[in-house]
C-alpha cells in the first residue's frame, strides 16, 4: 500500500511518459487512482547518442495504466512545439477533465558521447530547447485549465543533481546545456511557485541522481565513463549505491503532489543518495 494519500478522480499530465521515469510516474499515480494524459516525442533527436523512446514504448505505458483500471490518453508530441503540445493537452482534458497534477518530466541527455567530434552547439541548443523551454511549454499548456477549475493543484518539474551542482562538467555542448537547463528549471519553479500560489497551485522540483533508465544505462554512456574515469568518480553518490530506481523518484513525486504535502511549495527536493550534500 502506498504511503501517500489517494489521487482518486485526479488527472495528471506527464511528459516523457513513454518509458523510464515518466512511465514509472504514470503507473505510480495511476495506482493511487489518477487518470493520465501521457505525452512523449517517441522519436530520435539528432544530437542524442542513445536510442530514444518509441511509439511501442508509449503503448506499453498505456497498457500498464489501463491494467490498473485507470484511463489514459496518449499523444505523440514534442515539448518544444507549443502548438502540438497544447493540442495534445487539450485533447486529454476533453476526454479526462481538467488537469490537477503536472509532471514536466521529458528530458534528454546529449552529453557524454564517445563521438570524438560532436556538434557542441547543436547539442547545447537541443538540450536547452527540450529540458528548459519544453518545461515552460508544459506548464503553460496545462495551467489555464488548472486555474479555471479553481481546485488548486500540484506541479513537479524534474530537474537533476545537475540543477544544483556542476560536478562532472566536461565543457561539451551537451553537458553545458544539460547543467544550464536543469539549473534553469529551478528558476522556473521558483517564479511559478510565486505566480501560482494565489491559485493554491504548488510548484516544486525533484533532483534525481543517476536513475536506472535507458538515458544512463546505454552503451554510449558506459563507453564515455570508461574513457573518463575522473568524471565518473565525480559523479559518484554519497550513499553506497551506483544509481537509484525510477520508483524512488516516483515515490517522492507522489508525496509532493499529495495532500500530505499540501503546504510544500517552492522546494528543491533532491532524491540523490546524498550526491549534493557530499
Amino acid at each position, binding site marked *: 500500500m502506498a504511503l501517500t494519500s489517494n489521487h482518486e478522480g485526479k488527472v495528471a499530465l506527464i511528459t516523457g511518459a513513454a518509458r523510464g521515469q515518466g512511465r514509472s510516474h504514470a503507473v505510480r499515480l495511476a495506482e493511487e487512482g489518477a487518470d493520465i494524459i501521457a505525452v512523449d516525442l517517441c522519436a530520435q533527436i539528432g544530437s542524442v547518442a542513445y536510442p530514444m523512446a518509441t511509439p511501442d514504448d508509449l503503448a506499453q505505458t498505456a497498457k500498464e495504466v489501463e491494467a490498473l483500471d485507470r484511463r489514459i490518453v496518449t499523444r505523440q508530441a514534442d515539448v518544444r512545439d507549443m502548438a502540438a503540445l497544447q493540442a495534445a493537452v487539450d485533447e486529454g482534458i476533453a476526454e479526462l477533465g481538467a488537469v490537477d497534477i503536472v509532471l514536466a518530466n521529458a528530458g534528454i541527455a546529449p552529453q557524454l558521447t564517445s563521438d570524438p567530434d560532436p556538434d557542441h552547439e547543436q547539442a547545447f541548443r537541443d538540450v536547452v530547447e527540450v529540458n528548459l523551454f519544453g518545461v515552460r511549454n508544459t506548464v503553460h499548456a496545462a495551467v489555464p485549465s488548472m486555474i479555471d477549475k479553481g481546485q488548486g493543484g500540484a506541479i513537479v518539474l524534474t530537474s537533476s543533481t545537475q540543477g544544483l551542482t556542476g560536478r562532472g562538467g566536461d565543457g561539451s555542448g551537451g553537458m553545458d546545456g544539460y547543467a544550464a537547463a536543469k539549473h534553469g528549471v529551478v528558476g522556473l519553479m521558483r517564479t511559478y511557485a510565486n505566480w501560482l500560489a494565489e491559485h493554491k497551485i504548488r510548484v516544486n522540483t525533484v533532483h534525481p541522481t543517476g536513475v536506472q533508465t535507458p538515458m544512463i544505462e546505454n552503451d554510449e554512456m558506459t563507453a564515455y565513463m570508461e574513457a573518463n574515469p575522473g568524471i565518473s568518480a565525480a559523479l559518484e553518490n554519497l550513499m553506497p549505491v551506483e544509481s537509484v530506481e525510477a520508483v524512488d523518484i516516483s515515490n*517522492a513525486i507522489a508525496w509532493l503532489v499529495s495532500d500530505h504535502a499540501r*503546504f510544500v*511549495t517552492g522546494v528543491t527536493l533532491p532524491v540523490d543518495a546524498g550526491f549534493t550534500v557530499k
Partner: protein
Amino acid sequence: MAGRLEGKVAFITGAARSQGRSHALRLAEEGADIIAVDIAAPVESIGMYPPATEDDLAETVRQVEALDRRIIATKADVRDPAALKSAVDDGVAQLGKLDIVLANAGVFEIFPALELADSAWQEMIDINLTGVWNTCKATLPHLIENGGGAMVLTSSTAGLKGTPNTIHYTAAKHGVVGIMRTLANEFAANSIRVNTVHPTGVDTVMIQNEKTRGLFLGGAENPTREQAAEAFEATNALPVPWVEARDISNAILFLVSDEARYITGVTLPVDAGYTVK
C-alpha cells in the same frame, strides 16, 4: 492500521505536546513504538508562552497507548547529555532497538539583537543547537548497531533565512543544518540518512502568543488570532497563515519511510512558500 513503520522504534525529543506529540502519534499510527523525552519544565529565558508540563507528557503517553503502541517516556533536558543517554539507552533496552530519531525539542523567543542578554543567547544555543547534537550523539551508536536508520532534525524557515529580532534562534536553526550536513556525510556508510525539516509558523503555543503576534503585527497591543492570521499570511506564498503540526509530521513520516530510502542531506521546507517568496 496502515503499518508503514511496523516494527520500528522512534526516539523523539520535545514530545510532550505540539509538533513533538503530533510526530509521536503520526509514527505510532503507522506502527512505530516511541521513546519520548521532554524537559516538561520552564526554561529561564523563555517567557512568552507557557512551558510543557509533566501532564502534557503523560497525555502523549496516553494517546500513543490508545493507538496500541508502546511508549517509554522520560522527563529529560536535551542540555543534559547524561540524562539523554540514559533515557535513550533505557528506551532501547525496553523496546529492543532504534530506527528513527527526531530531534524536535526547541524553544523560541523574541528580542531585538542588541537587547538580548548573554545568558539568553547561551540558553538558546544550548537548547536549540547543542541539544540537537546531544540528541544525535546519544542515538547514533544505536542506529549504527541497528545497521542503519533515519534522523530528522527540526530546523525552521529561520534556518534558511534571516528575520529581525530572532538572532539567537536564527543562528541556532542555521547551525542545525550544519549538523545535518556533516552527519549525512559522516554516517552514510552506516546507512544512516539525515535530513532537516523547515516549518513556517506552526499553529502551536510557540507562535500563538501575544509577543509573537506582536512581532508579526509590528508591535500592536493585544493582537487577536484573527489579526495575527492576516499578518502571518502575508509572509507565506500560499494563502494560509500557518500550517498544522500534522503537516510537519507528514513530511517527517515521508522522510523516515522506505519511500525516501535514497533521500539524505536534504533541507525540506514545509513552509507554504515562505522561503521561496
